[in-house]
């Protein structure tokens, strides 16, 4: 996808491609050529759909006998901004994002610290803990449903034995917690992996020196280890945040937004608008709004990364 700013970026690429005579000439050209195939494929796959999306967002879209567009002015946009259900979904999405990312950070760091203190068999333990991140989200969702089924779910029967008698995916709060935990189950390992690598990568002598200074373990962690992995942690969070806004597989196969809309996050609402109601103009407006929000989140992360830009 692109924005106005990015289109400028597109244009500014062309001098590099054409070899920018007078500057470093041939070398620049090589880099330009190296970029061309990838960027070109990406451009085709993203710029055309983006433009189509913008057009659709100002139209009523008919499907039969080939797509037809009927000018609708700002209808879709005024609806997307004034629909209270939509704002409720945004609120839910924000809570979902904060809860998943927060828990993943907290648990990931905790697990990494614990693993780091294990002397023997760390490799094996890490391997086991990593497993969930390779599981397809749709399988995570289906497995989650199986485990929390009110009749034969393993987790349901465990909760029953400690006195919980509700239904996990039936209650509004419990269903929301359940889908958050499914996401947390899948992605905490990624954070743990990264933090552990950070811990392992810190020069032991630095830690020794910190110990000499009398700095406690936690202070060392906070002041020496964390800053050194801040960059990659932010990148991981960025990717997670983007995907958490985008992906809907887990919720789609578990609650599909219910009960009582408790898990109807924005991507679920978008999917429903596009492929249940086929209100494609409205869906385009929702999609673009999502894109703007995601880009803002990404910008915020990039700014947090500060001068340590990943690509510089």
């Amino acid at each position, binding site marked *: 996808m692109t924005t106005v700013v990015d289109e400028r970026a597109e244009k500014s690429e062309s001098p590099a491609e054409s070899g920018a005579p007078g500057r470093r000439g041939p070398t620049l050209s090589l880099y330009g050529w190296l970029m061309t195939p990838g960027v070109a494929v990406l451009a085709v796959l993203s710029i055309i759909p983006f433009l189509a999306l913008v057009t659709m967002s100002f139209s009523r879209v008919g*499907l*039969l006998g080939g797509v*037809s567009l009927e000018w609708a002015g700002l209808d879709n946009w005024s609806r997307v901004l004034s629909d209270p259900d939509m704002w409720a979904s945004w609120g839910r999405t924000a809570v979902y994002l904060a809860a998943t990312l927060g828990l993943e950070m907290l648990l990931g760091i905790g697990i990494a610290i614990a693993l780091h203190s294990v002397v023997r068999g760390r490799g094996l333990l890490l391997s086991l803990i990593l497993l969930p991140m390779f599981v397809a989200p749709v399988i995570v969702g289906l497995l989650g449903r199986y485990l929390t089924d009110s009749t034969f779910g393993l987790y349901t029967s465990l909760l029953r034995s400690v006195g919980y008698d509700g*239904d996990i995916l*039936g209650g509004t709060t419990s269903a929301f917690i359940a889908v958050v935990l499914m996401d947390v189950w899948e992605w905490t390992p990624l954070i743990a992996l990264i933090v552990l690598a950070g811990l392992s990568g810190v020069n032991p002598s630095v830690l020794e020196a910190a110990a000499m200074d009398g700095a406690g373990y936690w202070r060392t962690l906070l002041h020496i280890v964390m800053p050194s992995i801040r960059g990659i942690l932010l990148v991981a969070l960025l990717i997670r945040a983007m995907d958490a806004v985008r992906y809907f597989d887990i919720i789609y196969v578990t609650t599909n937004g219910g*009960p*009582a809309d408790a898990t109807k996050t924005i991507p679920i609402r978008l999917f429903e608008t596009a492929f249940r109601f086929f209100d494609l103009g409205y869906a385009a407006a929702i999609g673009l709004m999502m894109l703007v929000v995601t880009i803002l989140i990404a910008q915020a992360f990039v700014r947090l990364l500060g001068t340590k830009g990943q690509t510089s």
Partner: protein
Amino acid sequence: MAALADFSAKEAPLPRSGPFRPAPRGTRRSYSRRGFLRAGALGAGALAAPSLLAGCGDDGTAAVPPLEPGDDKWRRFAGTTINFISENTAPTAAIAANLQPFTQLTGINVQIVNLELSALVQRVALDLASGDAAYQVIYADPYQVLAPYSAGLVDLREFLEDDSYPPVEGGLDDFIAVQLDAAGRFSEDAPVYALPYDCPTMIWQYRQDLFDRYGNQMADALGHDVTPGPDRTWEEYYAIADWLNQNADEVAYGSGHQAKQHDSLMNDFSNVLWAAGGDYFEAGQEVGLLGMEDPGECVLDSEESMAAADFYASLLEIAHPASSTWDWDGVGAALRAGEIAMCPNWHEFAASNEEALPGKISYAPLPRGPARAANMYGGCGIGISTNAEGAERGAAWLFVNWATSPEVQLSNLKSSAGGGTPTRRSVYALEQVQQAETRPSDLPNMLTADAVFTAWEPQNIGLRPKIPMWNECDTTIFTELSKMIAGESSPSEAMTSAKSSIDSIVQRGWVA
């Protein structure tokens, strides 16, 4: 697909299912053997050795040369391959497990794509938009496909009135009338967009053993007859559920419902709504039968509708608490697992009920309310994409004709893959089928016959609005109901809010 054919060859012995071509006039009962021989002679001749059938479909298309035009109406498109996109329902599972006879008969290969309903709707809409048919035969859910996309479906009179095609056996009159209108037509009397293919209908499913054991005791305690049947009222259903909650230890709860935030919740609620005299639109049941573009104002805020919502909320309060996580599968599984003593559910679950709890589950029409009894009809037809062209278009019709024929409807009923019940009156008239209506039954879905026949009477059938924007209205309805059940809104708030949303959805109109 080759393996599919292989599977069918092993699981469903061919002689029993027959070759499914309309019998020569006047020889209805002998279709099996004669058609069998004929198909064998015309086809690859491999029928006698089922194990050879595996590669037959693929080889058949390439190897069998087209016959002389006009020689056999069933074989004029031999060698064509068509795709059938269907909801993953029991009848399609039965057909998928037994496609070989069709290939034998016509030389046409059929690939079946089975999808969950919402995925199906998505694919169909995209396919219609593409202007080029990837799927020639479409499972046309009346509410989610037919109403919004009737313009993308072929008016089947094109084939019905053309005698270069084999005729529909028994004519359109052999279909159950209300089903042909509800599943096959949209907004007008004449055009037929789909032929009725399955006919799930919601009925009262209950544990016969528990009613036998507690019936008298219950009747004494409650002061009224408790035998499930068309004379019971929803109030009495409530009282029975409540009594069973407290007195029957065999089950956790008396009643269970498909009250997940899902289409199923709208279905479950509608039975109560209509029984109470409420409805979705001013146009009432008329909008359910033929359907229309503009159904008028939403009447969910009427006194009757509100009363229905009130009652439904209280019914769910005493129902199994997991009801709010169950769709029809969930509540069906719960009944089979002995969690609940009764539930309203689709009649097609009878076969799996009988397998899990043989002899223990019986069926009745749903209770009535102050206004009437209403049994939600959920049948679908199959139709043809207007994008289908040439031989594929004709081949698609042959498949539609075949798949809805009495022979195939009968074989679905018998299928071990758990088919549904027929959409053809003539099949219900067969002796072997009628015998199966009582235990011991070798066609357990027929145990529901009495209940569904009552349900299909025009005054008892429940038809949801057939309007192009139903999907969105449906979502609004089950979302508001879900909030009501979760205690987040009162019944009257739920209905008022649903009404205002639906009015604005309908007002926005539909661009197909």
